[in-house]
């Protein structure tokens, strides 16, 4: 395999949470928590995930707009190829260890396109100056030469050289994003980070800008890290995709393969969210339950287990998958103290006006949380019933105890390793782990 232009290893970015008079650190928001991937020369890697999963933080840490907490970003572009590790294990091309001079040199080889075209240009500077400023910063003093280069570049991205003197407010969003691309290109970099470059644009303009990015990439052999939350955009521009969830990469592989055969349940859910023009297949989207957990206190084990529709059942239980998911959701509600018996009581009283009996309350709870009136698994039913008894008699602690001790998933206990599905396609889910396979074998007996 040829040397990757960029290889990220175990990159972490934690924002400390400080509190109190002396700014004591009480925790950290783990925006990016150990991601690793490679980008080959000329390749586009898509980084996809929902809002707040750490995509943009990953981008700014890689390009060192922010200093990462931990990890290594080796950049081999811009004539740095073929470097070998030093004796102490550090890499001479490690961006996170670049000094000021090396960093400025790195800026010439790696640039970025920003998300919001309306705020990515200085409103008080002609756009030509904004683009030409990069040349100036890197030592091109000749004003006429700067103007010629920027004018030529503006023409290449589909604008006119006369637009040099115009101000950002005189352009549309799509035009500004073209200028944004021109700014990223003007130093002739090898690598570009595109942070949601089209998410603020209309559909038609989106397609134009995407095809422009594609053309430019082919012409100049750029490598791109393309960040998006939109799977359809990813499919149209990326060679490979990395799916992020809560600061971790849960699946990475070739775009075609991931779209055809997603291995991680989260990827499945994301893919099912792509709107399809075919009305017959509509409505089969996977709906993720529960809220996105906070990155300052991520769930144990597999971080996705609190919302996963394929969450694994313990050996002793045999429930329908959907019911099992709801049962876990219900357990989470009770555990977090979000369950309120008075609400239930009120709902029942509203319907018919007498003091509700315990049975009525229990029915109402099952109704509210979409639990069936009787679970198919007898032992589970017994535990649930006892827990509900405790809940209606205001004994929440005992109910929590019962629910959490009985309804646990292996996903919450074991952190899944990456499983390789061939040809660089990896995912981290317990379903693919040997552990899970052993389980399946046992239950088959």
């Amino acid at each position: 395999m040829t040397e990757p232009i960029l290889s990220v290893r175990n990159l972490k970015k934690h924002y400390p949470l400080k509190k109190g008079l002396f700014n004591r650190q009480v925790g950290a928001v783990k925006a990016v928590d150990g991601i690793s991937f490679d980008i080959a020369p000329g390749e586009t890697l898509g980084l996809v995930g929902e809002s707040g999963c750490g995509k943009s933080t990953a981008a700014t840490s890689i390009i060192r707009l922010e200093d990462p907490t931990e990890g290594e970003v080796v950049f081999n572009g811009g004539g740095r190829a073929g470097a070998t590790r030093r004796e102490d294990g550090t890499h001479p091309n490690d961006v996170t260890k670049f000094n000021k001079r090396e960093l400025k040199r790195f800026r010439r080889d790696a640039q970025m396109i920003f998300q919001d075209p309306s705020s990515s240009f200085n409103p008080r500077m002609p756009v030509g100056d904004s683009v030409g400023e990069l040349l100036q910063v890197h030592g091109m003093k000749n004003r006429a030469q700067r103007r010629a280069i920027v004018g030529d570049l503006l023409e290449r991205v589909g604008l006119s050289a006369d637009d040099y003197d115009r101000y950002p407010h005189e352009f549309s969003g799509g035009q500004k994003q073209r200028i944004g691309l021109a700014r990223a290109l003007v130093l002739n970099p090898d690598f570009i980070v595109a942070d949601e470059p089209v998410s603020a644009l209309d559909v038609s303009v989106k397609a134009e800008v995407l095809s422009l990015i594609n053309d430019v990439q082919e012409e100049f052999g750029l490598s791109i890290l393309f960040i998006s939350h939109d799977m359809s955009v990813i499919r149209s521009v990326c060679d490979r995709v990395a799916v992020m969830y809560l600061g971790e990469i849960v699946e990475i592989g070739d775009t075609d393969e991931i779209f055809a055969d997603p291995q991680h349940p989260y990827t499945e859910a994301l893919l099912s969210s792509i709107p399809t023009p075919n009305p017959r297949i509509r409505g089969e989207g996977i709906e993720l339950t529960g809220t996105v957990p906070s990155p300052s206190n991520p769930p144990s084990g597999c971080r996705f287990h609190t919302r996963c529709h394929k969450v694994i059942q313990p050996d002793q239980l045999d429930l329908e998958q959907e019911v099992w998911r709801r049962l876990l959701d219900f357990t989470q509600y009770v555990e977090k103290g979000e369950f309120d018996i008075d609400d239930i009581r009120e709902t029942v009283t509203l319907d018919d006006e007498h003091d509700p009996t315990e049975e009525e309350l229990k029915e109402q709870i099952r109704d509210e949380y979409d639990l069936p009136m009787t679970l198919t698994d007898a032992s589970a039913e017994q535990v649930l019933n006892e827990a509900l008894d405790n809940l209606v008699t205001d004994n929440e602690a005992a109910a929590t105890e019962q629910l959490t001790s009985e309804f646990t998933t292996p996903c919450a206990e074991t952190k899944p390793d990456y499983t390789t599905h061939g040809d660089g396609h990896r995912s981290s889910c317990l379903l693919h782990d040997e552990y899970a396979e052993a389980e399946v074998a046992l239950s088959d007996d």
Partner: protein
Amino acid sequence: MATQKPTKFDQVDWDNLTGSGRFKISINMKLLLVTGVPVLLLGLYDHFLVGDREATFVRLGEDLGLSSQFEALGLDFNPTSVDILFVFTIFLFLWYLVLPLYQNMRMTKYYWKEFKRNRPAVISLIWLTIIFVGGVLGPFFVAMPEQDLFAAYQPPVFGSIDQVHVNQCVGEISDGRCQGTWEYPLGTTRGGQDVLAMVIHGMTVTMQIAFITTMIVAAIGITFGTVSAYAGGWVDEIMMRFVDIVLSFPTLLFFLLILYIYGAGLGMFILVFGLFGWGATARYVRSKALSVSEEEFVKATKISGAGTYRIVRRHVVPNTASSIITQLTLIIPGFLLAEAQLAFLGIGDTAVPTWGQAISSGRNAIDFAPWIVLVPGMALFLTILAFNFLGDAILDALNPEAEAESEK
């Protein structure tokens, strides 16, 4: 050209880039150096070499051996240090505010289009231009108002006053009332000083206060605010607490104290109020700078490899400018009012003819000679109103982002 410089971005050989020049000084800086430095040198010369009773330019002519030429040209001025600072500030204003407007014609047209929507502001601007031109050029054409007891209480043109109040009527006397004349178009005071001349010389003082305090406040406020915003951490904390001290400092009492110990002229007034008036501006600039520095274009500049100074100078400060200018136009009226109040109470600088003094000189005669109070009073009132209108309009005009967003 000996070697053709590449004009395509992918043909630039960055490692062997030969710059055409050394450190370049902008045209604005050059103009400021050419005009401002002589003025400052003159100020130093005036302060250290010229005696108290000598006129600066007369002495300068002697020292340069050009007395006769100076005399022929009528160069016999004796500028005070406030005058010299005022001239310097005007140059600063010309090269760093007016000239950039000309250099960025496109943006200026846009600003003007936005600005002129606001009619009161346009009228305000015209009024302030009159005050500015009158203040700068007026003293060269209109002599300082002088005492002339025979011409006391002359009424303004088209006005009249009961004969008993005047010693000698310059105009005609009809029905026992003295009629106004064009010799004193706005009438005279008890001392026979021409009110028009007083108002014109008052314009100079007004503009001096407005310009010099603004310069002091802007210089300290912008520097303090941006440094505080960019330094962050405990530096920011200390600087902002210092601003709290400045803000809660009893400037007026401090000024009175200085007044009783050293006696205080206009220069001292400007200095004290300027040096203690920047607190709010610094705070404002800091908050604006903090919000601007979160914008994507600042990140984009950072990623281009630019240093912090460049980012602050070229991107952060220009984008805080609209709020700074607005804030400054809104604090100028405060200084003007403070000066007028002190002058009215009789503790201002008696050597300079301010509007406040003119108002104060007419208060005993308000029942029969109201013009003495009304004319400078109206001038002061309108000027303060104009600054306020202007501030509002500038805020609206200088904000292309808000405009672009509202069009969406």
